[in-house]
């Protein structure tokens, strides 16, 4: 059982969409955050249900990943809980041929893009740095050094534009990562080359223990857009429809040759930074509780119930699918044999060097001595 790529319908899809509202704030070309503006979304009920399914499954696999980490099947895990609207909503705005450049935080975005969850988790399992084929899913490896992937996304977008291919690159990074030089260089170069790339900053209020107020003094990360000559948008990152709408508008503009956009999704990380982090050292339970009341998965479920799009049958169906997924995660990740250590020599270069062959022979000898070979 695999999750299919979530993507938007072609424009001009079925009409029930007009009742659906998304809201975001635009930054004027010369700066200045405008008042929130409302937009109609072109999403039909089928799409809304797909989106719900991805959100709910995302929450389920994230919870299961935390469990599996506690139980030792994963070495560490960086939860996306609380950020499902930002991640799933953004990915849902991509077309099949587009590319995603996620970070360690974006396992749920990667999953929503269609990557098998077990392959996603290889990184955290410690079996390999990237467990999936980037070309198969058009998803780059989840990147650990923050902000660096923003440049890869920009470069890929530049290349696609040069080739005349109508594809868009979406990259996700945090408000902390936005302090890095690479974030600025990526946005500036994307502006210069009018690269079809969308920068989605998930402002989840913390960079490990450091609150956004000590990360930057700007009122909004979106205010960095005019300084690189691109549109900027600030959106409620816990409202999946607004995130979808804002990112979709940016993707459409990029594809049409309108260049990059910076989108700041204001959200919250509900869990600790990773399973190795102790969040009680830097934030209090009240704050977490306040944001938990704004849970993006429940909120979307409620919206859909209000719209009459979500009923108990669908909820149950998705829940069952989630349990199936969780079970498969457990089965695949628990007690998985470590790979052959000799594989470490295989992918350094297209052809191993003489030195690597010698070193491999050394390891071969050791493995034979251990009786492992």
């Amino acid at each position, binding site marked *: 059982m695999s999750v299919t790529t979530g993507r938007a319908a072609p424009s001009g899809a079925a009409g029930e969409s007009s009742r659906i509202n998304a809201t975001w704030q635009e930054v004027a070309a010369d700066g200045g955050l405008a008042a929130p503006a409302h937009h109609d979304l072109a999403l039909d009920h089928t799409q809304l249900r797909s989106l719900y399914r991805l959100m709910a499954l995302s929450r389920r696999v994230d919870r299961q990943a935390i469990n599996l980490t506690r139980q030792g099947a994963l070495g560490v895990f960086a939860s996306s809980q609380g950020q499902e609207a930002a991640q799933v909503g953004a990915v849902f705005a991509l077309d099949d041929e587009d590319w995603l450049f996620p970070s360690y935080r974006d396992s749920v975005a990667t999953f929503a893009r269609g990557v098998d969850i077990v392959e996603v988790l290889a990184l955290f399992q*410690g079996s390999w740095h990237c467990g999936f084929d980037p070309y198969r899913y058009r998803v780059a490896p989840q990147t650990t050094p923050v902000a660096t992937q923003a440049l890869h996304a920009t470069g890929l977008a530049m290349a696609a534009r040069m080739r005349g291919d109508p594809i868009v690159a979406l990259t996700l990074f945090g408000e902390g990562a936005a302090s890095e030089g690479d974030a600025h260089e990526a946005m500036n170069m994307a502006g210069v080359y009018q690269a079809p790339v969308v920068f989605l900053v998930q402002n989840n209020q913390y960079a490990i223990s450091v609150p956004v107020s000590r990360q930057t003094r700007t009122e909004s990360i979106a205010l960095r857009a005019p300084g690189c000559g691109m549109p900027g948008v600030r959106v409620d990152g816990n409202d999946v429809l607004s995130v979808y709408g804002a990112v979709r508008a940016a993707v459409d503009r990029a594809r049409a040759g309108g260049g990059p956009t910076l989108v700041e999704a204001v959200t919250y990380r509900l869990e600790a930074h990773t399973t190795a982090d102790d969040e009680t*050292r830097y934030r209090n339970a009240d704050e977490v509780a306040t944001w938990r009341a704004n849970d993006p998965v429940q909120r979307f479920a409620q919206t859909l119930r209000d719209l009459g799009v979500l009923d108990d049958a669908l909820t149950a169906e998705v829940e069952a699918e989630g349990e199936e997924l969780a079970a498969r995660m457990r089965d695949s990740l628990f007690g998985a044999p470590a790979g052959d250590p000799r594989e*470490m020599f295989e992918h350094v270069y297209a052809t191993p060097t003489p030195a690597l062959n010698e070193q491999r022979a050394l390891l071969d000898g050791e493995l034979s001595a251990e009786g492992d070979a």
Partner: protein
Amino acid sequence: MTVTMAAALNTALRDAMREDDSVVIYGEDVGTLGGVFRITDGLQAEFGAERCFDSPVSESGIVGTAVGMALYGLRPVVEMQFDGFSYPALDQVISHVAKYRNRTRGRVGLPMTIRMPYGGGIGAVEHHSESPEAYYSHTAGLTVVSPGTPGDAYSLLRSALAHPDPVVFLEPKRRYWMKEEVELPVSGEPIGRALVRRAGATATLIAYGPMVATALEAAEAAVAEGWDVEVIDVRTLTPLDLDTLAASATKTGRAVVVHEAPRFAGYGAEIAAALTERVFGHLAAPVLRVTGFDLPYPPAKIEHHFLPGVDRILDAVARALEY
């Protein structure tokens, strides 16, 4: 008392801050959280957020502002959260930290310390297990230090903080929880001096940082083979105390250098080359190297096959003895 290396480092920082109010500490998560390894734990509480504070996620920024702080007369001690995240600061380190005194004809020295946990062995994800010492050691103008024991962690860090020149202080993260009986404060041998950790006559093992303990373990295991192995802890990578290494190699005629970093153009090559040049006539075998392989640090599940262990070290000693 029994102290872990983490506690020794924390105490060294605290003692230095008490003695010298020009010492300021900053970096990612070093304030409220006390660092991801808790090396700066409690410092913000004791000295206030003026002297121990969190920075944005901005390694070049951290090191570059430390240059300005040192220029103004403070003694900044900055943390790179992990080895693999020290690379964005390499330009500031190579182009400025290392060169400022020379550039200004000795008028402006930069008494700053760049601390970072380094090395593998803790089951971490990519970029958290790098051994970047070759980059720093090759950069003229830097002093590069790595302690192998809790006591040395204390005394070397105190020395680094009092040093007139910039020190890159490499903390062997998998030894943070290593324990030693030692009374703090302890003042050990100064920066620039290697130490014979175990005397022996058959062969010399040369190690630093995380590999000191492994080399000592190997030396103990070697007793069963009838070998009496001397173990030297390099302690200061730049400047290297070649005299101590040469005295040992002259005595034993056989030396093996051990480090986690990949071998090719690694720090061990310098030891092998310099030592050979100095004591060529006394060597019964070439200086051998036991190192990580020439590849990006592997995933956690197979890292123990990458890291030099007792058996790999003993095999090399055997090869040296067979010459």
